């Protein structure tokens, strides 16, 4: 009688029970985003500091001697919060948009759709990581601008609220851009013809009352205008719109965009064939 050696067999893994929220899935989505961001730190952190530094330097030099009499200083202090916001909003939207288009074109997006991550968890992971990377990019710019122009926060809590709500809004918008774009051409068209004009016509560098009427009319419906205006208020500068109105606008647009994006991802719009 031959005796078979009984080998102990490892008990099969029990199926993983997912709670209401797949936290591990969200954390993994975010980790992948942070890794890309870190690998290209020269572009993602060094580039924006350099370009904002150039803007500042050029403005200081162009304003020139009139800086002494205080008028030039006022202009610089007006621009400072705008430049910080411009960096934050550009990067919060671009990080996620580039990532989504890249993953779509390379066919990596399928990996995200085949794991047990709900559409809203996917959007949440992408959006929050883009907000955080956008803030990391902006921090050195903020410090530089504060040192050069001497502006400081007068209402830090409001500033935090504006930073969070506006970067969330732009990150969701970035996700939507990424979903919509079928190729790099599409993405750069949205950035070149929509994002860049909207950031420039948002009161970043110039107060609304110096624009001609038609441009001022565009600015009032430009969400970025409210972000810049409220942030300037939080840094002790002049603001046109009551801050609670600005915050409501930012949060409201964020919620609408989030609902649209969640719905589209759930439907698999432009990501599932």
């Amino acid at each position: 009688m031959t005796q078979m050696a009984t080998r102990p067999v490892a008990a099969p893994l029990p199926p993983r029970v997912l709670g209401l929220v797949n936290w591990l899935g969200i954390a993994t989505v975010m980790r992948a985003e942070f890794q890309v961001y870190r690998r290209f730190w020269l572009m993602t952190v060094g580039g924006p500091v350099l370009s904002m530094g150039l803007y500042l330097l050029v403005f200081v030099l162009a304003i020139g001697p009139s800086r002494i009499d205080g008028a030039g200083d006022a202009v610089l202090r007006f621009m400072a919060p705008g430049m910080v916001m411009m960096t934050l909003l550009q990067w919060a939207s671009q990080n996620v948009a580039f990532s989504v288009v890249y993953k779509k074109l390379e066919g990596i997006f399928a990996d995200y759709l085949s794991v047990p991550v709900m559409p809203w968890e996917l959007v949440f992971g992408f959006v929050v990581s883009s907000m955080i990377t956008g803030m990391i990019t902006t921090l050195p710019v903020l410090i530089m601008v504060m040192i050069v122009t001497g502006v400081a926060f007068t209402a830090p809590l409001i500033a935090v609220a504006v930073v969070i709500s506006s970067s969330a809004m732009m990150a969701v918008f970035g996700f939507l851009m990424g979903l919509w774009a079928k190729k790099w051409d599409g993405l750069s068209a949205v950035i070149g013809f929509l994002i860049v004009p909207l950031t420039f016509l948002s009161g970043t560098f110039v107060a609304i009352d110096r624009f001609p009427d038609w441009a001022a009319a565009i600015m009032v419906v430009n969400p970025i205008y409210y972000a810049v205006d409220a942030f300037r208020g939080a840094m002790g500068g002049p603001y046109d719109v009551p801050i609670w109105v600005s915050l409501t606008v930012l949060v409201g647009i964020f919620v609408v965009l989030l609902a649209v994006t969640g719905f589209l991802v759930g439907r698999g719009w432009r990501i599932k064939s």
Partner: protein
Amino acid sequence: MTVLLPTPPRPRAVGSINWIGLKTLYVKEVSRFLKVFTQTVAAPVVTTLLFYTIFALALGGLVRDADGVPFLEFLAPGLIMMALIQNSFANTSSSMVISKIQGNIVDVLMPPLSPVELLCGYVGGGITRGILVGAVTFAAIRVFVPVGLHDFFFIAYHAVAASMMLSLLGIIGGIWADKFDQMAAVTNFVIVPLSFLSGTFYTISRLPEVWQVIAHFNPFFYMIDGFRYGFIGQSDGTLVLGLFVMFGINLFLAIVAWRMLTTGYKLKP
């Protein structure tokens, strides 16, 4: 039975210059950017106009004139030049890097094109895009601000010399870079700073003296200064020197790029 064979085509005799090859490469380079002209022509023009508007509005009340010239007229040539050089650079550098990464650079290296002809084809494409963007921007600005023409020779010379210089730099950078992010680093950390700090937005006379001396070593200063003279009839530097500097730099860069193409540096295994 004799079969009548058509006479085989004779080998094509290429003269001292392969005109067909050169023309084909040039047409390829131009149609490459015209195919996506919204990105390569329209977007840069819109961005430049936005820059112009913002600077005009932000500083208009504060800086009325630069060395006696109304600030808006002073600013326009500088911004046109900036758009022109950035697009010349983008054209040749992106063409090089993309062909290298996609591997279709062999299609350009295989045909009977000499290094000089390759260089002319690529540079021609870069110059065409730069000058096209510059001309459209000028036309658009002209609608709002009466920018005058003072000396057409300086405008034409510096437009061609500057776009040629940046096209050559784009070829050199494109051959050197192995990846897109290296190319982006060159654009962000070399080309943009040099063009920003060359007196596009302010007169050099505003700078402290040490910086004035340093500014004179920035080749971008001469092209913008000479180009601006063509419009407003005033300059910061010596005009004749500017002509020679641009000529010398172009000659030097052309030799470097030509050597790279001849030796096949990073192009041929």
